[in-house]
């Protein structure tokens, strides 16, 4: 997996996000409301796409898109 791909898939999942608007270094919370529903949609997305499970705590700790990608990548690698 790579971050470009990861971002592309996240942008497809969330209709509010314009294609190309997410960059690795941007803060997630500036781009979309990181509320409980979006968090669940994201959990579902990574589960189907990468077969990994994230906790609510891990989502809260992720500040940037890169952070989020790193968490998912680590989990994919230790599978």
């Amino acid at each position: 997996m790579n971050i470009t791909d990861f971002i592309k898939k996240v942008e497809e999942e969330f209709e509010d996000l314009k294609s190309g608007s997410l960059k690795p270094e941007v803060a997630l919370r500036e781009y979309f409301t990181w509320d409980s529903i979006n968090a669940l949609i994201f959990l579902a997305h990574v589960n189907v796409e990468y077969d990994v499970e994230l906790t609510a705590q891990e989502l809260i700790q992720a500040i940037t898109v890169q952070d989020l990608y790193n968490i998912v990548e680590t989990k994919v690698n230790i599978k």
Partner: protein
Amino acid sequence: MAIFSIPDIKVSGISACVPEKEYNNNDYDWISEKDREILIKTIGVEKKRYADKGTTTADLCFVAANKLLDDLKWDRDEIQLLIFVSQSRDYLIPATAGILQEKFGFPKTCMAFDISLGCSGYVYGLSVIGSLMSTGRIKKALLLSGDISTLNTSFKDKSAFPLFGDAGTATALELKENVPKMTFNLQTDGKGYKAIIIPDGGIRNFANKETSFEYKKIDEGIYRNNFNIALNGVDVFNFSLREVRPNIKKTLEFASQTIEDIDYYVFHQANKLMNETIRRQLRLPEEKVPYSLKDYGNTSSASIPLTIVTKLNEVVKNKKIKFLFSGFGVGLSWGSVILETENIVCPEIITYQKID
């Protein structure tokens, strides 16, 4: 492992009854319009039915079952076994099944008891009733399942109020040799018992003036008391995404079936996002996974039969169908069953009218 098959059990009919009053989630003004739109889209519930105070799950099941027995032309004297699956019983004591036995006019030779399960309750209920019938050679039996969840849900709890609806269902079963066997895979993880809970009113936290009635702020948009249902969305979500897929795969494997062999996958109607995620995990085509969520919400142990009655009515009446049912949630408890039906009796959904 609780994976097993039960021979000689035929599902003869399924019916469902819902209260008349309908709540539209577009009117849910406890949250903003934008939040409301996102919520409805994500959970997939537009409308749901709610019972008047005093109407019980047993009342809804009674109406559903009477219609079913009439359509099947089954004599009330023939029913030897009655099981009521619900978490919204009439009284703390006694069991509701006994009250129903008398109300139906079933004979005193009829065995009757309750099972306290929710989301997984229909699948568990089928396994218990099927096993008893098969080993005891009981010819005709009735499985009732459903819940009134709206009464215990706080209006000011955006995580629970828009989700639940009320419904009661009836499933008629009979002993018949050489019908395809039912295959079950039933599981439990009590570690997650707090993920969906009504804390007060049982023996552990008996109803009391100090904690039971007082509304507390839990989170933004979430206020409830200890008689209200508390739902930990993320925990239940992660649990379902982790456990349901392997449970279904094991069931298929044990029954020597492939994913494609099944005509319809009827899932407990938890919420749209969760169910769609499970559907996508298993790569199931949309047309094989029906939903009743949009019009009736999450109806607990009624959700699987309610979905059949409202979405597959014509199909089950006229065809031979291979089903996989899967229920998952409160307990935490989950399970699947593979079974076949052929031209069953399935009346249109019934609206409850209060009988004075």
